[in-house]
C-alpha cells in the first residue's frame, strides 16, 4: 500500500519537476529542478528493488554530471537579462518542430504493446551481488569493451582541451 503511495508521489514529483525544467526562465533553476527529477527517478529504481542502479543514478547524475552543468552555468553567468532576444520565426519553427515530434511520439506510443507486468520485487535482480555476477560473468566482454570506449572518450576530451597541439 505504502509502495503505491510512494510511486504516485515520486511520479508526480518527477513529471512536475521535469515540466519546471522546461518552463523555468533562469537556467540555474532549470538545472536544480532537473536534479530533483533525477532524485525522483532514483526513488523509482529503489521501489523496483534496483538499489545499485538507484544509488549510482544519484552519484553519477545528481552528484557529478549536474554539478558540472551548474558549474558551467555559473561560470558563464547565464541569467534572463543577458539571454539574447529570439525572433518570431525561430519561435514558430520551434513550435512546429516540437509539434511534429509530439505527433511522432504519440503515433509510436499508440501502437506499442504494454505486455505483461511482472512482479519484480522478490527475485532480487537489481541487488548488487547479482548485478556484479552478471556483468563480470555472462556480459564480461561487452562490459570491458564499453570501458575501452569510455577511456577513448576521456583521452579525446583531454586531447581537445590541450592548448598547444603541434
Amino acid at each position, binding site marked *: 500500500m505504502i509502495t503505491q503511495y510512494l510511486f504516485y508521489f515520486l511520479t508526480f514529483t518527477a513529471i512536475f519537476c521535469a515540466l519546471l525544467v522546461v518552463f523555468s526562465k533562469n537556467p*540555474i533553476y532549470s538545472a*536544480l529542478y532537473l*536534479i530533483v527529477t533525477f532524485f525522483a527517478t532514483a526513488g523509482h529504481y529503489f521501489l523496483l528493488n534496483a*538499489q*545499485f542502479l538507484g*544509488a*549510482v543514478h*544519484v*552519484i553519477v547524475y*545528481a*552528484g*557529478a554530471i549536474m*554539478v*558540472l552543468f*551548474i*558549474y558551467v552555468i*555559473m*561560470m558563464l553567468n547565464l541569467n534572463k537579462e543577458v539571454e539574447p532576444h529570439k525572433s518570431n520565426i525561430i519561435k514558430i519553427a520551434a513550435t512546429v518542430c516540437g509539434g511534429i515530434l509530439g505527433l511522432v511520439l504519440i503515433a509510436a506510443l499508440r501502437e506499442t504493446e504494454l505486455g505483461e507486468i511482472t512482479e519484480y520485487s522478490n527475485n532480487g535482480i537489481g*541487488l*548488487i551481488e547479482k548485478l556484479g555476477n552478471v556483468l563480470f560473468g555472462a556480459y564480461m566482454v561487452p562490459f570491458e569493451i564499453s570501458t575501452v570506449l569510455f577511456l577513448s572518450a576521456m583521452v579525446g576530451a583531454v586531447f581537445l582541451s590541450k592548448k598547444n597541439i603541434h
Partner: protein
Amino acid sequence: MLSTEIIYKIILILAVFTVTLVVALYSTFAERKVAAVLQDRYGPNRAGPLGMFQPFADGVKMFTKEEFIPGNADKQLFILGPSIAMLTCLMTGAVIPWGGDLTIGDYIFKLQVTDINIGILYLLGVVSVGVYGIMIGGWASNNKYSLLGALRASSQMISYEIAMGLALIALVMMTGSLSLGEIVRQQDEGLANIVYQPLGFLIFLVCAFAETNRAPFDLPETESELVGGYHTEFSSMKLGFYLFSEYINMFISSALIATLYFGGYNFPFQHSLGIEGNALSIVQTVVFFGKIFFFIFFYMWVRWTIPRFRYDQLMKLGWKTLIPLAILNLFITGIVIGFKNGFFN
C-alpha cells in the same frame, strides 16, 4: 515486534542526531582550545569553568545577530543553500555502526540506524550531493567572492571524490561487501583494514580533508583572498549552519575513517576481557568515540601545522598524485587478491 522496532529506531535516530550536534558544538570549542595550546595561548576561558559554556554563548550570539539577505541575492536559493549543507551532513550518520548489539529482554537492538547493503554507495551519494549546499549558497549571494569560493569548492570536491572513490573500491574489493556493518564485523575477526590498506587509508584521509574543506585545503573560504569565500554574504544562523555543517562533516568523516580503516567499534583483545553482551557493547561504543575524538583532534592538529595549499598545487595533488596512487593501490589489491584466490596458478 514491529512497533518496538520502529520506536527503537526513532529513539536511535534522535540519539544519533543529538550526539552529532553536541559533538559538533564542542568541536568548535575544542578547535579554539587546541589552537590555543598549539600557539601557546589560553584560548576561551571566560564563560563557565575553563570556558566550557563558550559554545552556548557562541550559539546565542549567532541566533541573536541580525538576519540579513542582500538585495541582489536570490532569496529562495539563499535560504536553500545552508539548508542543503546542514541536511546532507546530518544524513550520513544513518549508516555508521556506533557499537555492538544491545540485548534488552527478548529484543536485540543494533546500534546502527540502518545496515543497508549499499552503505558505501549511500555515503558517496550523500557526499556528492553535499557540494550543492556550498554551490547554491555561493551563487545565490550574487557576490564575486562568494561565486569564486563556490566554484573552488565544487571543483575541489569533484576532483577529490574520484580518488576517494577509487580508494574505497580497493577496500570493497578486499572486504567483498558494501555494508558498513559487515566491514566492521570482518575487522573483528581479522586485523583492522589499515594493515591491509595503508596506501588506501592515506588517500582516503587526504581526500576527507579536501571534502570537508578543512585546512590545508580550505581554499573555498580563504580569508586572505576571498573575504569569507562562499559564505561572505551570510549572517546570523545561516552562517551558523555553514560553519556548523563543517564541524558535523568533520565528526562524520572521523567516524568513517575509524569505521573503514581502524576497526570501527572493535578494539584489540576485546573478547578476552571477560565482559560480554551489553557491557561489551557499551565499552565498544566508548572506544569508538575515543577513536573519533582522536581523528577530530588530528584534523585540528593538521590545521595549525600545515600551511594552506595554493590552488594549482591542490589540483595537481588531486589529479596527478592521488588518482594515480589510488589506481596503483587498486592494481596491487587486485593482484594480491588474485594470488590469494589462486588465480595465477
